[in-house]
C-alpha cells in the first residue's frame, strides 16, 4: 500500500542520492491529504432518543482516527446528501454521487441506569451492503473508547489488520520552571485525550515501557538523585524498585511474555545490557563491551534483543541472540542510528536516524535493509510502533517545547497529538486492550 508522490519526491530523492552513497534513503514528503486515500463519510450519530445529547461527539472521534490512519479520507460534512442513522434510511445513489465509497452511521440510545447503547453500521456504498453492524452497551466514561473501538473495527474490515486506535500511550511531561519544575509520567488515549498522571517527581523521569498486558509500566526515575529502574502497577499504583545498582540503571524493556526485563547497567564498568528475571531478580549479562550499549528491545519471538551500541565508533543498531553469540550489526546507512523499536511482525524497525545535523524517524526493513525516512523535522526522538505496526508515535520539538506526533505508514500522514500540557517527550505506545466479547 505505497502511495508515494513521485513528482514531489523527485527533487528530494536526487538531493539525497548525491549526499548518500550505498543504499538510497527515501524521504517521504509530508502530506496532509493523501492521494489514493479511501473516501469515507462519517455521519453524526443520532442522539434524538436521549433526554440530553452527549458531549462526546462519536463521529468526530471516528473521523479523526480514520484521517490519522492515512488510509482513509473522511469527506467534509457539508458534502453529505442526507443524515441517516440506520441502513434502511440510506439512499445509496446520493452517496455514490457524493464520492463516498464507504459510509459510517449510527445512533445512541438510552439504557437503564444512565448508560447507553451505541449502534453503528459500516456500509459499502458501491456494493450497497452492510459490512459491519454492532451494538455496544456503554457507560458515559467509556464513550470515547467506544468510538476508537469502532474505528478499529472499520480499519480491520478494510485492511485485515486490527486497528490500534483504542489503545493507550505513556509519555513524560515536564511542567513548571526553575524550582517548580516537575517531571510527570502520564498515560493517555492514543489521540492524547484522558491524560492521567501515574507519577510526579522533582527529579527526571525517563524511558516508560509498557508491560505486554498493559497493566504495568517500567521506567527510570532519578528521585534518589541517580537513575534507578522501577515497575509500577497502574491500577493499584504499587511499585517496586527493580534495579538500583552502582552506576547506570536505565532503558528498561519487557520480554514478550512479561516475565523478564532487559536493562542497561554500568555496575561492571561501561553501560552493558542485562536481562533480569522479574520474579527472582536474577540478572544475566548479555553484552560485554567498552562501548555504550543501550536501548535494548526484545524481538517479538523473545529470542533476541535489538540494541544501540557505538562499538563501531558511532551509534548503530545490533541484534544479539539471547542464546549467545556475537551481535550482528543491522544499520549501515548514516552515522547515527539509535532508539530502536520492533514492529509486531518482527520484520521492521522504527529508529532515530541522524545525518547532517538532523535527527529524524525512519523505518528499517530488516529483510532488504531498506531505510525509509518518515519525518521532515530536525530534532525527533523516541519512535514507538503502534501494536499493529502501522503507525509510529514519536517526539519532536516545536518552538521551545517537546510535542508528540504520529506518522501513518499507510499514507504518511503526520498528526500532532492534542491536549498535551508542558514539554512532552518519550512516548511509548501501549499494547492492545483485551477484546470485548460480542
Amino acid at each position, binding site marked *: 500500500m505505497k502511495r508515494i508522490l513521485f513528482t514531489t519526491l523527485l527533487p528530494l530523492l536526487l538531493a539525497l542520492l548525491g549526499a548518500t552513497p550505498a543504499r538510497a534513503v527515501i524521504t517521504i514528503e509530508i502530506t496532509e491529504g493523501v492521494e489514493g486515500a479511501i473516501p469515507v463519510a462519517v455521519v453524526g450519530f443520532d442522539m434524538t432518543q436521549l433526554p440530553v445529547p452527549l458531549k462526546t461527539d462519536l463521529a468526530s472521534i471516528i473521523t479523526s482516527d480514520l484521517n490519522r490512519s492515512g488510509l482513509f479520507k473522511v469527506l467534509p460534512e457539508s458534502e453529505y446528501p442526507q443524515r441517516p442513522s440506520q441502513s434502511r434510511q440510506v439512499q445509496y445513489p446520493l452517496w455514490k454521487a457524493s464520492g463516498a465509497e464507504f459510509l459510517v452511521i449510527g445512533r445512541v440510545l438510552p439504557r437503564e441506569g444512565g448508560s447507553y447503547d451505541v449502534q453503528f453500521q459500516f456500509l459499502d456504498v458501491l456494493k450497497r451492503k452492510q459490512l459491519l453492524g454492532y451494538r455496544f452497551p456503554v457507560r458515559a466514561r467509556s464513550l470515547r473508547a467506544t468510538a476508537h473501538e469502532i474505528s478499529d473495527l472499520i480499519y480491520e474490515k478494510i485492511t485485515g489488520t486490527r486497528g490500534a486506535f483504542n489503545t493507550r500511550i505513556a509519555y513524560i511531561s515536564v511542567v513548571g520552571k526553575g524550582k517548580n519544575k516537575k517531571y510527570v509520567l502520564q498515560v493517555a488515549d492514543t489521540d492524547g485525550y484522558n491524560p492521567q498522571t501515574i507519577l510526579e517527581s522533582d527529579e*527526571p523521569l*525517563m*524511558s516508560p515501557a509498557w508491560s505486554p498486558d498493559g497493566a504495568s509500566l517500567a521506567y527510570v526515575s*532519578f528521585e534518589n*538523585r*541517580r*537513575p534507578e529502574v522501577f515497575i509500577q502497577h497502574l491500577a493499584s499504583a504499587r511499585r517496586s524498585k527493580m534495579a538500583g545498582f552502582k*552506576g*547506570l540503571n*536505565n*532503558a528498561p524493556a519487557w520480554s514478550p511474555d512479561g516475565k523478564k526485563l532487559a536493562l*542497561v547497567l*554500568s555496575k561492571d564498568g*561501561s*553501560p552493558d545490557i542485562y536481562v533480569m528475571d522479574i520474579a527472582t531478580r536474577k540478572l544475566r549479562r548479555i553484552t560485554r*563491551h*567498552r*562501548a*555504550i*550499549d*543501550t*536501548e535494548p528491545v526484545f524481538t517479538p519471538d523473545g529470542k533476541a534483543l535489538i540494541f*544501540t*551500541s*557505538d*562499538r*563501531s*565508533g*558511532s*551509534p548503530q543498531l545490533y541484534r544479539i541472540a539471547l542464546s549467545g553469540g556475537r551481535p550482528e550489526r543491522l544499520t549501515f546507512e548514516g552515522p*547515527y542510528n*539509535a*532508539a530502536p523499536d520492533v514492529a509486531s511482525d518482527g520484520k521492521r524497525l522504527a529508529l*532515530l536516524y*541522524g545525518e547532517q*545535523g538532523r*535527527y529524524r524517524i525512519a523505518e528499517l526493513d530488516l529483510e532488504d535493509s531498506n531505510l525509509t525516512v518518515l519525518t521532515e523535522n*530536525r*530534532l525527533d*526522538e*523516541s519512535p514507538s510502533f503502534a501494536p499493529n505496526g502501522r503507525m509510529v508515535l514519536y517526539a519532536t*520539538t516545536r518552538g*521551545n517545547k517537546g510535542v508528540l506526533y504520529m506518522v501513518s505508514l499507510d499514507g504518511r500522514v503526520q498528526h500532532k497529538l492534542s491536549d498535551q500540557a508542558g514539554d512532552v*517527550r*518519550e512516548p511509548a505506545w501501549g499494547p492492545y486492550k483485551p477484546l470485548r466479547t460480542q
Partner: protein
Amino acid sequence: MKIRNLTIAFGLLFLAACQTQQSGEGMEPTTDTAQQTQDSGMAEPIAGGAETTQLGEEQLSARELLEQPDSPLSTRVIYFDFDSARVRDEFLPVLEAHGVFLAENGNVRVRLEGHADERGSREYNIGLGDRRAQSVRQILLFQGASSDQIETISYGEERPAVLGHDESAWSKNRRVEMVYDVQ
C-alpha cells in the same frame, strides 16, 4: 572522534588520549602503557601548573580553598565536544588541580554529573554523560584522588544548563559538573 596528534609527553595528556580511544572507538585501550603511566603518576604526583602550588597552603580549609575565586578549583564545569568524552586540553590544568586537591583532602567528596546536549536519543545520551563523567574521574584518580571520594552520575540530556536548540546552547550543555561535598 579522532585521536589528536599528541606530541606533549605529559602523563596526564597521555592518559586522556587513551581514554578517548577507549570511549570513542570501543576498542581495548593500550592498557599496559596506560596502567604504567597511571602507576608512576600515583607514586609521584605531577606538580604541573603554577596554580597547584597554592593548594599546599595548609592554613586554608578545604572549603576555603574551593571558595578562592582565582583558583582553578573555582572552575567546576568541564565542557566537551559533540559526541565526545575527550577532556579538552584547556581543562586539563583545572582537573589536575581538582585531583591534587582531592588527594590532599581525603575527607572531601565530589560528585561528577555528566550531561549531554539534546540531540539524538535520550538513553544514548545517558551513556554519553556517563562516559564524560568517567573521563573526568580517570584524570582525578590519576592525580591521586581516591575512588571512594568520587561518585559519578549521568543525567544525559535531562537537565540542560541552557535552553535552546542551537550550538550556543548545546555547547553549554555538553558538560560534567563537579559538585563538592565538604563536611
